[in-house]
């Protein structure tokens, strides 16, 4: 029996190609995602393993302030070095300094992308403890001499003997006396690395000659890493710890996974899931149509004595086979997708480490199992329906799918949609904690309801959407409309694939648009300055606090305030701090102070966002313990509460409070207010005069700054669109495939039409019309769904993500509609051409 099914699958292989393609693409994306994740992980793994290769133990501060974005660890006392050296079993000791240092190129512009770190460090003389190798020149011996990694030298066009500037963030002139590689690579990924001798690094990076960041230790022969770490820990002062090199590598890996790789993977897997869901509709459709076309064959088998179970088994075996074949093919497609994704992230400024793709058996198993299962599940319903065919159907003439819509479907679909919509409305109106979760659940239910109800809507929708067709293209239009109406289930399932893709696109468009508008709105309302000096990228860059001071001293400038970022444990948990001169800040930014006064923030005082204070029950005058990375903890008093956390974050402290605990004091942005009577242009020119010598950060006008304040969202949205394009392509192929199968099914009708005088052009326009109706049905449904759910999510997140402005970007949404219609036309091209080329007589004679 199964053999019969497989034989018949083989005979029909061309018609199965469409289904295979959908699975293929979905699995390609899934395995591509997995391969990329695996590759990055492996590349980072080996980078860290190389970096720590000769290090048997590391001695460092035990205190770590860990916010979701990054973490900070304080330096340790230089005196510890002597203690470590004295421990029995220690072969070599290297005190090490590492921190932020932006290397500038010849033109005074920063080297390096916006993602990877820029490191200033101390050169370690013992090659066993240093992952960098000198390939040119020598190690730095005097202040002002540095070794740079080859990658940084290349991209900055710097050569041995050149002099340039390093900002730590204070600018220092440095002479390149050595070029180093990381192992044999140009660098540690895209990281730029500049190394001084130890005293210079201590002075420039740590600002103190009696501190080091960590101590690297090499064990003597016969002493294990664990043994070494244990011995070290016995002599170390409290607050300082020793861990093995192996532990360090594992920690590095966990950090990169937690911060970056983990979210990247989750992000990509979501899109793989969407692609598979859209693919599942295509599979369901193809198998439904094939099952319907095979009604007579199935009925004949039943009449000859095949049981229902046998038939069901045979059909399921067929979909399993399709799933398996396509999944295996998809695995190979995945390699291409992984390359593509990597290129995509590089194009958007990711700067991921290089190296060949990692392909593990685990990935192959996951991709094949998931792909095959999705196909099999999508094939269950069509197989069940086909197996219920009564034997008598063998004698009936025309084999078509049942077109009735059951009461059960109406109840189930209506119920799901109603509950979903109610949940979204509830979440949108209450906006409390958990509202986003409720809205998300509601969104899924609404989508499920719409999919179940699809066939009910298909007929009326086709009637409405197809209404202009008869007027536009006469009889061909009428036939197109009727064909779209004739099998609501097929039309709905085909459109659903597009609806899911378009729905997600619209949702992202609405949400991102609203988020952008909200950010710009609040930044625009609170930023009272005229100019802003910003560093590129996502937190990678930094400014010397001197820039703010020097700009502030310009006669054209009334006030300039630098905002820095820090981290500390506030009231028990790690939080990001915003550091600024409060008196100046109030002149440039309207923080919406609710209580207290920001202007006089003392060294033991802090200001909190209203939201954070409310969440923890803190109020004006509350005393909170604040613990810094240098292990000092002091009580701070809440001196002010403010509304605007978009610019100032949740916790604001004065520079005076932060500076004693900071390793490097950096500003991420400087706000400038132009003096009265001075043209902004003139002030801008003056400000540029100062910034040009300071790594050339961007100087933006108020409008430019407000517009760019949500710039990260555009980049993200760009990536999201590219990823969703795949879902749209799969949906497009689903429509093309359904049309092709429908046309195959209607070969005789097409032949008859041609015989009684339909021109090729009329046939083509008929098929295009049908495709358009289906595509527009799916697109309109998707846009409506996306806008509604987008509205729900925006409202639900108004509190937590501060999306207080809702906008539906009309232009973009109209664009989505146009794309939907274009998809319809594109999908019809091949089937229409095939239909028009049909040989009239052969078509009429076709079985």
């Amino acid at each position, binding site marked *: 029996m199964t053999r019969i099914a497989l034989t018949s699958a083989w005979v029909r292989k061309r018609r199965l190609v469409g289904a295979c393609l959908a699975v293929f693409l979905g699995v390609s994306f899934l395995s591509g995602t997995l391969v990329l994740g695996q590759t990055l992980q492996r590349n980072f793994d080996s980078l860290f393993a190389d970096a720590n290769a000769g290090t048997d133990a590391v001695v460092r501060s035990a205190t770590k302030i860990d916010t979701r974005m990054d973490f900070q660890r304080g330096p340790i006392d230089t005196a510890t070095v002597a203690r470590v050296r004295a421990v029995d079993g220690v072969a070599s000791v290297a005190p090490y300094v590492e921190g932020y240092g932006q290397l500038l190129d010849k033109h005074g512009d920063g080297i390096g992308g916006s993602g990877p770190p820029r490191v200033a460090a101390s050169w370690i003389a013992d090659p066993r403890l240093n992952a960098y190798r000198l390939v040119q020149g020598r190690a730095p011996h005097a202040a002002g001499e540095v070794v740079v990694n080859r990658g940084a030298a290349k991209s900055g066009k710097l050569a041995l003997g050149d002099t340039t500037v390093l900002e730590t963030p204070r600018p220092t002139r440095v002479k390149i006396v050595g070029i180093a590689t990381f192992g044999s690579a140009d660098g540690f990924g895209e990281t730029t690395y500049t190394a001084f001798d130890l005293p210079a690094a201590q002075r420039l990076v740590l600002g103190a000659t009696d501190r080091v960041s960590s101590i690297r230790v090499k064990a003597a022969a016969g002493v294990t890493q664990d043994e070494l770490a244990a011995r070290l820990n016995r002599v170390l002062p409290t607050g300082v710890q020793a861990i093995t090199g192996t532990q360090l590598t594992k920690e590095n890996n966990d950090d990169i996974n937690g911060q970056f790789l983990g979210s990247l993977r989750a992000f990509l897997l979501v899109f793989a899931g969407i692609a598979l869901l859209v693919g599942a509709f295509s599979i369901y459709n193809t198998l439904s149509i094939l099952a319907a076309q095979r009604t007579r064959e199935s009925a004949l088998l039943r009449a000859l004595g095949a049981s229902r179970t046998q038939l069901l088994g045979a059909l399921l075996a067929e979909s399993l086979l399709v799933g398996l074949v396509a999944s295996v093919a998809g695995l190979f497609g995945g390699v291409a997708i992984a390359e593509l994704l990597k290129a995509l992230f590089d194009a958007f400024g990711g700067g991921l480490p290089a190296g060949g793709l990692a392909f593990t058996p685990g990935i192959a198993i996951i991709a094949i199992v998931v792909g095959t299962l999705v196909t099999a599940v999508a094939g269950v319903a069509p197989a069940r329906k086909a197996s219920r065919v009564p034997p008598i159907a063998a004698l009936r003439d*025309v084999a*078509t799918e049942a077109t009735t819509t059951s009461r059960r479907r109406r109840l189930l679909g209506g119920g799901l949609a109603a509950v979903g919509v109610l949940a979204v409305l509830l979440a949108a109106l209450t906006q409390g904690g958990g509202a986003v979760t409720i809205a998300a659940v509601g969104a899924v239910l609404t989508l499920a309801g719409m999919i179940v109800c699809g066939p009910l809507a298909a007929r009326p929708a086709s009637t409405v959407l197809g209404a202009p067709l008869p007027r536009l293209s*006469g*009889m*061909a239009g*009428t*036939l197109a409309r*009727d*064909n779209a109406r*004739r099998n609501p289930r097929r039309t709905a399932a085909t459109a659903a694939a597009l609806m899911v893709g378009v729905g997600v696109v619209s949702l992202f468009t609405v949400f991102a648009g609203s988020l952008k508008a909200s950010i710009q709105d609040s930044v625009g309302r609170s930023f009272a300055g005229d100019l802003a000096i910003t560093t590129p990228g996502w937190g990678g860059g930094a400014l010397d606090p001197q820039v703010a001071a020097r700009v502030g001293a310009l006669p054209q400038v009334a006030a300039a305030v630098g905002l820095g970022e820090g981290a500390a444990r506030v009231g028990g948990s790690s939080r990001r701090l915003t550091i600024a001169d409060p008196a100046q800040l109030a002149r440039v930014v309207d923080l919406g102070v609710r209580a207290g006064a920001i202007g006089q923030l003392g060294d033991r005082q802090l200001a909190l966002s209203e939201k954070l204070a409310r969440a923890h029950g803190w109020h004006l005058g509350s005393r909170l313990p604040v613990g810094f990375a240098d292990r000092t903890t002091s009580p701070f008093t809440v001196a002010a509460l403010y509304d605007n956390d978009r610019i100032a974050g949740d916790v604001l402290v004065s520079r005076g409070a932060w500076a004693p605990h900071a390793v490097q004091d950096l500003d991420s942005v400087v706000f400038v207010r132009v003096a009265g009577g001075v043209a902004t242009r003139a002030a801008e020119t003056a400000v540029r005069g100062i910034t040009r010598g300071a790594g050339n950060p961007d100087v933006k006008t108020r409008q430019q700054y407000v517009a760019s304040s949500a710039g990260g969202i555009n980049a993200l949205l760009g990536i999201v669109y590219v990823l969703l394009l795949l879902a749209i392509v799969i949906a497009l192929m689903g429509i093309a495939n359904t049309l092709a199968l429908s046309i195959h099914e209607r070969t*005789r*009708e097409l032949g*008859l*039409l*041609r*015989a*009684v*005088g*339909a*021109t*090729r052009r*009329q046939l083509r326009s008929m098929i295009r019309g049908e495709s358009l109706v289906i595509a527009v049905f799916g697109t309109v449904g998707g846009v409506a769904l996306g806008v509604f759910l987008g509205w729900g999510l925006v409202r639900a997140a108004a509190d937590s993500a501060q999306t207080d402005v809702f906008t539906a970007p009309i232009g973009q949404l109209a664009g989505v509609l146009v794309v939907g219609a274009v998809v319809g036309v594109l999908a019809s091209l091949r089937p229409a051409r095939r239909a028009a080329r049909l040989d*009239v*007589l052969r078509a*009429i004679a076709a079985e």
Partner: protein
Amino acid sequence: MAPDRVSAMSYELSDGARQRRSPNTNIAASAHDAVKVYGAGENAVRALDGVTVDFEQGRFTAIMGPSGSGKSTLMQCVAGLDQLTSGRVLVGERDLSELSDRALTLLRRDEIGFVFQSFNLLPTLSAAENITLPLALAGRRPDGAWLDQVVTTLGLADRLSHRPTELSGGQQQRVAVARALVARPQLMFADEPTGNLDSRAGGEILAFLRRAVRELDQTVVMVTHDPLAASYADRVLFLADGRLVDELSDPEPERILDRLKTLTEGVAP
């Protein structure tokens, strides 16, 4: 198109039809040395092997012959549904081999009507819509009075809103005949139009076809295996092995049967 122009046009058409009613020897369609070969090499089948025949205007011709003798092939080639391997087919003055696909399509749409052996109707359309399909494709309106007459004569008046699946085999066949007639094509081809019908229903259709020939000066070519059906025609052509082997004018069922017998006897050994 404005309604008054439509009706003016349809009157013109019926005037034209009336003028053609006078006795004439116009040739509506003809085949000259028609050869049709299916396949190639060893498997080649000569379905038509040098057939030369005229179909005169206003005559009802039946084509008979054993199964596989090339009847359907001849009809399809003359109707512009298929291309000859060699030889010529003329419809009116036009050589079909010189017409483009579009011109052929328009010729079929406007001047030729068909009834196929099976599968004649579009399942999505009602009987009425199926009947007017060629006109709709051409963007024309049917002549109401003529449509009524055709529909009534064929006994379809109370079945017009039904879909093909809701009609019996014979009713479906009659809808196909109505479609072939309603555009008033000069030429009408029917491949075993009464194959699925009982003798009474079949007789009605055949009588109607003959009336269309007599009163409207239409040219009808019909393939059939039934001598009784063939006896409604003005003449009968006999095909065997792709050749025209015999012809009868004003045939009666017994004479047709005789000829058929001699034919099959000649072929059988």
